């Protein structure tokens, strides 16, 4: 990866401060990243999700993943308990007590990679095995580069990358937004399979606008909801649920290409409350402040060589 001009300037700006003193988070804050030009993503609307898990099945089919028995006492069907090396997409049910908007007292959430705008996993990976496509922004994995250090797992704020613990030749496994289907002009398998439009595929800008449209709806009224692909033709009528007035993923840690709407607080369906600045920007800022693109270390090395050489000469 090349050192881009912006990063370099960032480093120069930051390095005007003293080495130790500059390490305060506020000063080291890096710049926010932009959405790639043709960014695509998913809008998941928890109020439309009926928990049928067809998307889980479709995801396994599309990505050749085996069934997983999460409760070994009843090994009957695929019932993963969480994301794993065998499960890239999962629907989870959360009981939400005392919430008037979820009549039955629970809400669903769909979890998979968020395709972050400033992805921690990409920044963490030492060998560029995880990269963010500069055009559509999809974060993909290359096993030929990966050394299996698992820093991506530590770094991902959403605990998405999974590791094949029981294989002698393990790989990192995560949702790659069905990039193999996108390459053929298709859409993600989970969205294509979703019967209600709860998982909606499309360009991120359009999905953001759609999310805003939904937030402005009158609860209880009927509206048109696009199904599968926001650029497609299929539409269903649904009664608008009461939304929590926030698009999760629009700003969290610099934003992501997967967006969420829900009728209950996001923390109650396992989506953490996160700041708007990504930890990546912070870590990058500090690294560049200290190293300024390797200029400082070379200067220091020169100084050290000079001192030590003088000393050794005197000794002789």
């Amino acid at each position, binding site marked *: 990866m090349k*050192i881009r001009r912006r990063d370099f300037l960032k480093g120069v700006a930051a390095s005007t401060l003293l080495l130790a003193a500059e390490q305060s988070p506020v000063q080291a804050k890096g710049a926010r990243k932009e959405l790639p030009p043709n960014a695509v993503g998913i809008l998941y609307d928890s109020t439309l999700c009926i928990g049928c898990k067809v998307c889980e099945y479709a995801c396994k089919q599309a990505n050749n993943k085996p069934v997983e028995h999460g409760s070994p006492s009843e090994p009957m069907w695929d019932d993963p308990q969480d994301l794993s090396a065998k499960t890239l997409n999962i629907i989870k049910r959360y009981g939400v007590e005392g919430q008037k908007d979820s009549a039955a007292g629970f809400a669903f959430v769909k979890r998979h990679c968020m395709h972050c705008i400033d992805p921690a996993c990409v920044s963490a990976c030492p060998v560029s095995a995880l990269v963010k496509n500069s055009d559509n922004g999809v974060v993909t994995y290359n096993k030929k580069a990966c050394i299996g250090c698992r820093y991506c797992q530590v770094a991902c704020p959403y605990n998405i990358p999974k590791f094949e*613990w029981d294989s002698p030749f393990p790989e990192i496994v995560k949702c790659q937004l069905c990039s193999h289907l996108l390459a053929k002009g298709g859409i993600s398998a989970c969205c294509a399979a979703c019967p209600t439009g709860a998982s909606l595929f499309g360009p991120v800008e359009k999905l953001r606008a759609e999310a805003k449209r939904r937030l402005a709806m009158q609860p209880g009224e009927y509206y048109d909801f696009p199904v599968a692909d926001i650029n497609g033709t299929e539409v269903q009528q649904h009664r608008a649920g009461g939304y929590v007035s926030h698009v999760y993923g629009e700003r969290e840690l610099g934003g992501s290409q997967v967006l969420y709407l829900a009728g209950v607080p996001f923390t109650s369906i396992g989506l953490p409350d996160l700041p708007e600045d990504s930890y990546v920007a912070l870590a990058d800022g500090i690294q560049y402040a*200290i190293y300024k693109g390797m200029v400082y270390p070379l200067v220091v090395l020169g100084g050290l060589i000079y001192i030590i050489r003088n000393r050794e000469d005197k000794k002789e």
Partner: protein
Amino acid sequence: MQERQALGGKVLTVPFKVCAAIVLIALFFLGKRFIFGIGSVTNMNDGYPWGIWIAYDVVVGTALACAGYSIALIVYVFNKGEYSPLVRPALMTSMFGYTLAGVSVIFDIGRYWQAYNIFLPWLSNLHSVMFEVALCIGTYILVLWMEFAPTMLEKFKADKLKARLNRIIFVFIALGILLPTMHQSSLGTMMLMAGHKLSPLWWSGFLPLLFLITAVVIGYAAIIFESLIASVAFKRPMEMHLLSKISALMPWLLGIYLVIRIEDVNLRGYLPLAFEGGLLGNLFLLENLLLLSALLILAYPSNRRNPQLLFIASCAMLLGGSMYRFNTYIVGFDPGTGWQYFPSVPELFITFGIIAAEVMAYLWFVKTLPVLPKLTKA
């Protein structure tokens, strides 16, 4: 020039054999790891992708191996030649510590057969802290062996080669100071990315600075500890004059560290967490109390001349500093999805095996190579 001697004596002693047995058990579990995967011997999981192999073997292990770095700092940068007798034993422990940390990384990474990818420029990710750490540690291991090479060449009477090496050794000495400064602080930067998954008692913009200071503190503590133990074990006089002089530095370093550590948590408003009585709060307190007790002991010059107190203080620094690092990587880390981690027995044995290998190498080297200073009284 300081004279050094090999201690001589039998290598195959009882402690040596005990260590060998532990290494054999570790090798068995390692075989299992390479045939059936990492999950077959460890309790690491998708919530806790790093266990003791990283947190102890690498993050704490390389700090313990900062003896060479810490001593080189005063001998070369602050030009205090009188400490040179401590250089060789310190360099040697560093060499073993770092080499074995490097070896355990190979056990830990899943796709070890592609480890060389780190060195392929077209794959390098300059944004990755892991990249910088891996490259620095890799290079530093080589540098340590080069720095130690004159000792081995002395033994084999390869004087010409030694003279040639001595002419360029200053480059390696300089690298030997620069590289640890870089990667020891970066080991702290690494956990910045864990963000909200790391308890606010440990997560901080000061991670790089605090990691660098603990590396130096642990490095000096290791020198004191090792030197006192070696004197007792090999019945040699203690190098008290040097040790007490070095330890005069420690109250300052510890003071700076503690002020930053506590004030940083305080300014971010999380200090009350420390007194809530939970595991994390208690560990935070213990960690800092250990370092504070070392500070209080070493603040008095008379204590610094007392081998017992010096030994206690060095233990407190080793423990407190190591705990800080360990907690940052494991105990304070919570992915928040119900995952738990406690190392399995085979996993522990592989770490014990690495420590045992280090002890064996130390015993063998001091007995056969001119590492420790020659006793003048003869």
